[in-house]
């Protein structure tokens, strides 16, 4: 029969990996999602394109190279200000006004991705430390100074988790509000209050446990040194 602790750790790791991947993919594709309404209204070569035009489809279209150099620019790093059609010339062409965001905005998204990874790593370290404490306790070294060290590291990591959550949310939402005029504000991207509250709550409890452990160690030392 499988050890319940090992099973719990494996399931927890799987859940965290899936959640991390989902968050990562969301941040990775957020700019693509937000481009779609603009292209929905676009007209190409005088024909109304009512269906959703994907960026990959646009990239394969042949446009007037003098007006927009689509083949050379990477659409993933551009925000579109306006799209209009020029009927005046013999060969109609699309005018797309855009500004590059590669240097500024996508550094924010890159930072968000790093924060998601950091959060994942921190959570895994906490799990590993809990496992280490269980192993130390199993060896009948319950009142051990190493346990206190491990618990202190867990407290530090737990306190840093809400900071990571808040920073990620702040950067992501500032990016969305700056570039998409709040169109994504109602997508529920804000972290839930529990994400901030639970780590701090557990940190407080562990902090009290550290105090109990410290007193236990002092008592054990006194008992050991009584001749």
């Amino acid at each position, binding site marked *: 029969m499988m050890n319940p602790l090992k099973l719990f750790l494996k399931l927890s790791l799987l859940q965290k990996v899936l959640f991390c991947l989902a968050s990562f993919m969301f941040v990775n594709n957020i700019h693509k999602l937000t481009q779609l309404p603009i292209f929905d209204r676009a007209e190409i070569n005088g024909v109304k394109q009512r269906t959703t035009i994907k960026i990959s489809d646009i990239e394969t279209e042949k446009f007037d190279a003098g007006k927009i150099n689509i083949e050379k620019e990477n659409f993933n790093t551009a925000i579109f200000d306006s799209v209009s059609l020029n009927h005046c010339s013999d060969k109609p062409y699309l005018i797309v006004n855009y500004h590059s965001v590669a240097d500024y905005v996508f550094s924010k998204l890159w930072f968000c991705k790093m924060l998601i990874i950091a959060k994942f790593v921190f959570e895994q370290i906490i799990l590993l430390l809990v496992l280490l404490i269980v192993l130390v306790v199993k060896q009948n070294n319950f009142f051990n100074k190493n346990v206190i060290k491990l618990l202190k590291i867990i407290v530090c990591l737990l306190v840093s988790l809400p900071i990571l959550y808040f920073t990620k949310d702040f950067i992501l939402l500032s990016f969305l509000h700056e570039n998409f005029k709040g169109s994504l504000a109602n997508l529920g991207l804000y972290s839930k209050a529990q994400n901030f509250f639970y780590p701090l709550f557990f940190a407080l409890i562990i902090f009290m446990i550290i105090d109990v452990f410290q007193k236990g160690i002092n008592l054990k*030392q*006194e008992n050991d*040194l*009584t*001749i």
Partner: protein
Amino acid sequence: MPIIVNLDVMMAKRKMSLNELSEKVDITLSNLSILKTGKAKAIRFSTLESICKALDCQPADILEFSKTENS
């Protein structure tokens, strides 16, 4: 601690080794060593009694209170 253990002085007076004392008092050598070096936090009356018996002395000969000692 301001309590000084003068066990080594009494042992020297009685010309008794640590091994000999540990056999007479029935305390392990490591515990006796802790007591001798002053690392011990407390001493039981029963231990003190058996040490006094073995060394033929008073508790005051082994333990001493010093106001200046703060370590």
